[in-house]
């Protein structure tokens, strides 16, 4: 068992959770990417047999608590997104970064739409195109996150 590797993964996820609930100001909050999705996506692509859907589920629950969304909503979103990634991880690994970013864009967009669909009536997130902006920034952040986490993975010899 690579406990050091687990620790690094847990730390990156903790940082992602902290970032996603960080008190950023109004204009930045509209652009704030889904850090947890990005981090989970990397680890699931890099080591799908080790960090899989259970991790996504648990992290999703934590995200639900920090974001004060319906308990299980992010868990569901992340489980579904990670299932898509894990099921296609061999194909995805061969794709260039920008195409991976497109896939992330699609997943993040679905995540936003699902959140809307579930929470829309309760919290009055008026459905306009601005709400999809975080999905775009999430996709844009995929490449730097990918490079950072890959550096960590190689450095700590994870998976």
């Amino acid at each position, binding site marked *: 068992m690579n406990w050091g590797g687990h620790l690094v993964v847990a730390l990156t996820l903790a940082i992602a959770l902290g970032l996603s609930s960080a008190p950023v100001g109004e204009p930045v909050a509209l652009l704030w990417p889904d850090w947890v999705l990005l981090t989970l996506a990397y680890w699931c692509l890099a080591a799908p047999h080790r960090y899989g*859907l259970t991790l996504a589920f648990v992290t999703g629950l934590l995200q639900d608590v920090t974001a004060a969304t319906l308990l299980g909503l992010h868990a*569901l979103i992340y489980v579904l997104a990670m299932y898509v990634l*894990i099921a296609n991880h061999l194909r995805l690994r061969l794709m260039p970064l920008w195409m991976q970013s497109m896939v992330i864009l699609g997943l993040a967009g679905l995540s936003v739409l699902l959140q809307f669909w579930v929470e829309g009536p309760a919290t009055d997130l008026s459905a306009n195109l601005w709400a999809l902006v975080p999905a775009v920034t999430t996709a844009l952040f995929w490449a730097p996150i990918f490079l950072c986490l890959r550096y960590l993975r190689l450095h700590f010899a994870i998976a």
Partner: protein
Amino acid sequence: MGFHSAARHSRTGLSALVLGVLALLLMGADSHFAWTRYVRGSILTALYPIQRVAGTPFQLAETLQQEVQRHIRVYQENERLRQRVQRLRLQTQELQALHRENRRLRELLNEAERLDRQVAAAQVIAESPDPFHHTLTVTRGGSHGSYTGQPVINADGIVGQVTATSPLTSQIILITDPNSAIPVLVRDSRVRGILTGTGDRDLLKLRYVPNSSNVSVGDVLVTSGMGQVFPKGLKAGRVDQVVREPHSPFLEVTARPTVPVSKLEDVLLLEQEARGDPNGTGSVARNGAP
């Protein structure tokens, strides 16, 4: 390989299904039951350090930003208030000037009412620079009805008389001009004399007062009405000094004008005839004037 991959695939699919259903059940529970509150609370407690650490730089940045914004706002407000103070100060000065003018004009008006005469207000627009010729130029001329010899007063008493007119302005010789001479009497003792200017803006001389007359310092000199230029009873000066020379037939009396002639801004030109009497003595003065 294919079998292996398919088996893993189906296992992943199964766990996705199980976890997805679990998530849906949790969502249902969260919206209908209260016990999820405790789950949420305990997770939140566990996450507190993470959130705290992650939030610190953002809070710092926000505090800094707010501080900077507050400074900018205070600076701008300061600038605005400074400009406002300037503007208000200017307004205050204008208002004070207006206030003074208002009081002056009111006094003039009172004087005009008291005299029961036709008067015309005029503004002083020029003053002779020659120190020995005390003349003023005012904003009423021949076209307004001014004429040579017209008496000029203000609320404090006699200013002088018109010596020359142009269509739009008149020149006034002040009572302090050396060429000015006005028949007056001492208000209390009714002693007559001629009040002449000296060339000093604050000094008049009362001439031809008999040595035996009863004149004392502080007595008020009023016009006697004898020159037919000024109406009777207007204040002209106040006795300042009385010198009794034993061998001279006359007293040496100096007086101060009641009107501060060096500070005049508005004056009244007095029509010679009483109200409603166009053929009064004014025409005489007009004809008799040089």
